[in-house]
């Protein structure tokens, strides 16, 4: 285990950012800290980096107690959401910074910097200032700068948050490939569940200063520990007392079993390759079902058709808790 966090708590005035958090982050993997804004995930990352001090608890990095170590002694690479580029230095000098601080020989620095610039595809921009780069390029430079010192762990705080959707997606794939290449223990913070599911080996879901669940993307998606994780990781709808993913509902025009719930189609919406069917059950519950286009055509549904719903056997469900304010049902459903 590479990073051990034990009983870490942190308050900002009256606000509890982290409440007795204990988690182990595995070596050599790409781990996502996922959760809504203000949930404490960035605070945890900054505590690992030493940029913030925990009020209680301990942090251990690769077997070394880092709780009281200042950031410069932790050998941690940190990448900020807004790049934190050294504005008065060229790209090359930005990347070389950590090595110069470590007083490495000049030719060794030059060699390592060239190698890293190549890795992040910025060779031809070596002599530019950060202001002359695009957001994506700046973030790649920041990554190269953090990697230059051969960090024990690489920490990224919402690294793609400030970039536009297309660049974000490119950089996401690129980060995954880069991680496979350099194999450094990497932890990144994100509030985007799609990003976490796509990139990470391991996801730690953090909400309200507490850890909700730790697991692989498949674990979390297929076996959510509670309704918060269920809601946060993907679209959900409610049938009876169960939270279920809309694509895990079966729909038919004739009843197929004793537990079927009958209802009427109230609306049909086409969203890209999916068809979304709004069904109002006999008890007045609004349920959402998503179908592929072919399934939809085979059923021949129309507004007003009476249908029967059931949960596909074996699909993940959780008991429905109260709907949290920050993840309204509609938003969670349409974001898929």
């Amino acid at each position: 285990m590479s990073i051990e966090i034990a009983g870490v708590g942190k308050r900002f005035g009256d606000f509890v950012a982290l409440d007795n958090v204990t988690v182990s982050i595995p070596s050599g993997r790409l781990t996502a800290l996922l959760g809504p804004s203000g949930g404490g995930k960035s605070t945890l990352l900054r505590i690992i980096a030493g940029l913030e001090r925990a009020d209680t608890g301990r942090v251990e990095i690769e077997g070394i107690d880092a709780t009281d170590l200042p950031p410069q002694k932790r050998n941690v690479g940190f990448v900020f959401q807004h790049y934190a580029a050294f504005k008065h230095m060229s790209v090359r000098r930005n990347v070389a910074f950590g090595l110069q601080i470590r007083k490495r020989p000049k030719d060794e620095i030059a060699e390592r910097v060239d190698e890293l610039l190549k890795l992040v595809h910025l060779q031809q921009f070596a002599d530019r200032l950060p202001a002359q780069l695009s957001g994506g390029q700046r973030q790649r430079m920041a990554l190269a700068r953090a990697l230059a010192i051969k960090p024990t762990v690489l920490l990224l705080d919402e690294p793609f948050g400030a970039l536009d959707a297309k660049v974000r997606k490119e950089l996401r794939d690129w980060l995954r490939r880069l991680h496979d290449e350099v194999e450094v223990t990497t932890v990144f913070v994100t509030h985007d569940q799609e990003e976490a599911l796509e990139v990470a080996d391991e996801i730690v879901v953090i909400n309200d200063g507490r850890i909700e669940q730790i697991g692989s993307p498949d674990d979390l998606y297929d076996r959510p520990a509670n309704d918060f994780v269920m809601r946060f990781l993907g679209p959900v709808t409610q049938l009876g007392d169960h939270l279920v993913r809309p694509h895990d509902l079966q729909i038919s025009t004739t009843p197929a079993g004793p537990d079927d719930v009958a209802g009427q189609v109230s609306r049909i919406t086409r969203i890209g390759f999916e068809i979304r069917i709004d069904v109002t059950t006999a008890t007045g519950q609004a349920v959402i079902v998503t179908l592929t286009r072919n399934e939809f055509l085979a059923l021949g549904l129309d507004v007003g058709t009476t249908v029967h719903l059931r949960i596909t056997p074996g699909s993940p469900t959780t008991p429905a808790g109260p709907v949290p304010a920050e993840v309204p049902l509609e938003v969670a459903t349409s974001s898929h």
Partner: protein
Amino acid sequence: MADTLVKPAPVKKASAGKAWTRKRGPVTYLIRLVVVTYLFFLVAWPVYLVGQNTFKKGFDDLRAILTDPDIVHALHLSVEIAIISVIINTVFGVTISILLVRYRFPGKRFLNALLDVPLSVSPVVVGLSLVLVYGGRNGWFGPTLESWGLQIIFAEAGMVMATVFVALPLVIREVVPVLEEVGEEQEQAARSLGANAWQTFRRITLPSIKWGIIYGVVLSLARSLGEFGAVKIVSGNVLGLTRTAPLVVEEKYLNFDKGGAYATAFLLALVAVASIIVVSVLRPKEDR
């Protein structure tokens, strides 16, 4: 002096700026006229007249003061005191600015308010208060220092203190907004890359607040060179010993030596204007 140093707004890209430029109607020209007239009669014309009066008799007046050993001493003294004060104010100003922006501590608001006192209190009051504390005979602290052989009042030390006091906020008020704008992330990045506090300051913080410091230094220099009230009280105004250039101007003016007064005033203004021009020429085109 300070009025001429108002920083130009950050240079926006021409294309982006153009769309927002309003059409120039008669009101725009009227406002321009008012501003130009105002500045002309308040600043430009009086300063110009000092220059004109200096050269009324060609270079005679300037030559006269530059060959008078007492005045040359006063000019030397003024420059010396200004340079020492600026160095002190720069070191303390940058330190206090970092303290104010980067750290949270009890009494911060009070400290912040206290730093504006030198700007709001009349320099004469500053002089008097320094005499009350450090005065050799009756001062609160002065006799003790004097018994150790340290004379503050009526000596250069007191003059430096008075000058430091009146120019104290100038570096801080220039550096604080720059520090706030630059933010803490670059420093944190440097720390995570292994830099200690001093390395972070020298390699990251200092280059990013460089222009704020330079403006602060220029303002302080101008202010320190021209300080009159506080210095007059603590210096004792002894010719050839503790009389500075601004005191010479007053003395000459009161003694109906108008030519000498104008010539000394011109030299004082020249240094200040020159430093402002040098800074605006050196300043890089792209903002900071």
